[in-house]
């Protein structure tokens, strides 16, 4: 079984790495919200430009994340294709004008408006990708729970998240072991069997995995209970860092972007920037 392409923490010395986890989390969330709200081409191009600059600053190389970028590209391509297949005239409807460039067959024509809609839709996703990748690649997982607590989320939930991050490699290893043991007994999940057989076979792997996970839950929660987890309203974090000047500047910057985003997008009462009318 080939190892799945998983993005993880990459340690480097850069301005982005120096920021506290809380700052990066706020940046990431505000950025997602900003890109979700707007459909304005001007705002989206600005955001795209900023995210590329941030990516440069982080010293993460394209090579480090090439697999992930490839996945994103495939995902976007499929999505664009489906949108076009289902409604080739959607852009015309949105932008209330029609400029035909090319006729393929039947209802499938290529209009300038449709292309513009696809461009916007793609930019909307692309401008979040670098920020999301950087958030994962530049935040130390052990700082993650502390940063969740930093934005006011209950430390219990923060602890759940860091437990998840802590146990992903263990669960992965266990899955791998169980699946190899079952394969040795002739249980197969690949395309050679019928779909229903494959599903039934998956139970043979999942059941030991679930049972051992339930045991693990028992052990870990007993250990945490013995150490008095959840006794107090608050807890402190060893990895938590003090907010520096740069942190406040970053937060101020991203909030400004969010406000500009809202103002520019809704100035004319429409989410879409329409250059056609």
């Amino acid at each position, binding site marked *: 079984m080939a190892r799945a392409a998983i993005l993880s923490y990459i340690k480097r010395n850069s301005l982005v790495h120096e920021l506290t986890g809380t700052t990066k989390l706020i940046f990431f969330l505000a950025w997602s919200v900003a890109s979700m709200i707007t459909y304005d081409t001007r705002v989206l191009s600005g955001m795209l430009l900023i995210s590329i600059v941030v990516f440069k600053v982080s010293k993460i190389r394209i090579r480090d994340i090439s697999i992930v970028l490839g996945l994103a590209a495939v995902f976007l391509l499929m999505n664009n294709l489906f949108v076009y297949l289902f409604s080739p005239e959607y852009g015309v409807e949105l932008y209330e004008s029609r400029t035909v460039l090319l006729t393929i067959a039947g209802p499938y024509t290529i209009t300038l408006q449709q292309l513009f809609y696809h461009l916007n839709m793609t930019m909307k996703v692309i401008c979040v990708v670098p920020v999301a990748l950087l958030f994962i690649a530049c935040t130390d997982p052990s700082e993650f729970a502390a940063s969740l607590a930093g934005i006011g989320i209950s430390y219990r*939930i923060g602890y759940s998240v860091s437990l998840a991050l802590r146990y992903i490699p263990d669960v992965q290893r266990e899955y791998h072991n169980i699946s190899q043991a079952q394969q040795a007994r002739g249980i197969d999940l690949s395309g050679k069997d019928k779909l229903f057989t494959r599903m039934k076979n998956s139970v043979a792997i999942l059941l030991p995995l679930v049972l051992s996970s339930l045991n693990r839950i028992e052990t870990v929660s007993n250990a945490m209970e013995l150490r008095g987890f959840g006794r107090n309203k608050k807890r402190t974090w060893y990895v938590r860092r003090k907010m520096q000047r740069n942190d406040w500047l970053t937060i101020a910057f991203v909030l400004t972007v969010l406000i500009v985003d809202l103002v520019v997008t809704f100035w004319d009462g429409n989410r879409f920037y329409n250059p056609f009318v």
Partner: protein
Amino acid sequence: MKKLSVKTVVAIGIGAALFFVLGKISIPTPVPNTYVSLQYAIQAVFATLFGPIAGLLIGFIGHTLIDATSYGPWWSWIIASAFAGLVIGLVTLKLDINEGLDSRKTVQFNVAQIIAHLLSWGLVAPCLDILIYSEPIEKLFVQGLVAGIANMITTGVVGSLLLVAYAKTVVKKGSLNKEN
């Protein structure tokens, strides 16, 4: 919000790890680019065992991690995943698997998961997609329906089998007999 017990906190963490690992493993189906999503079966089992909040957070954390490590988060579907866990947990709240599993309970589990996936992928995900991404409605509902039905079948088959097998391993109350 009621305080989460230590056990729920750990169950959410490890449940989300399972959700993530299974989400990264793909079992191909005859339809191109579609995979059996085993993670929803696990989510349903954990929501039944540990309650609605656990189901919600396992979906939310697990799905966010899957998306963030592959192509950036697609929030509408993340929220739909979380919502599915919440609904399954709520409907099966009174279902005590540790007391044994009969056919009535299995049916109830399946009703819960069918309602949950119908609402999540038929309603929540497409509506949020329209709101956030303004994609054409026809595409979203077809996509949601396909995903929803696939998840229902996976959860129905794999989830039920897991639950039955799990219930067999639990020692029931009063299972010891006094020897004469």
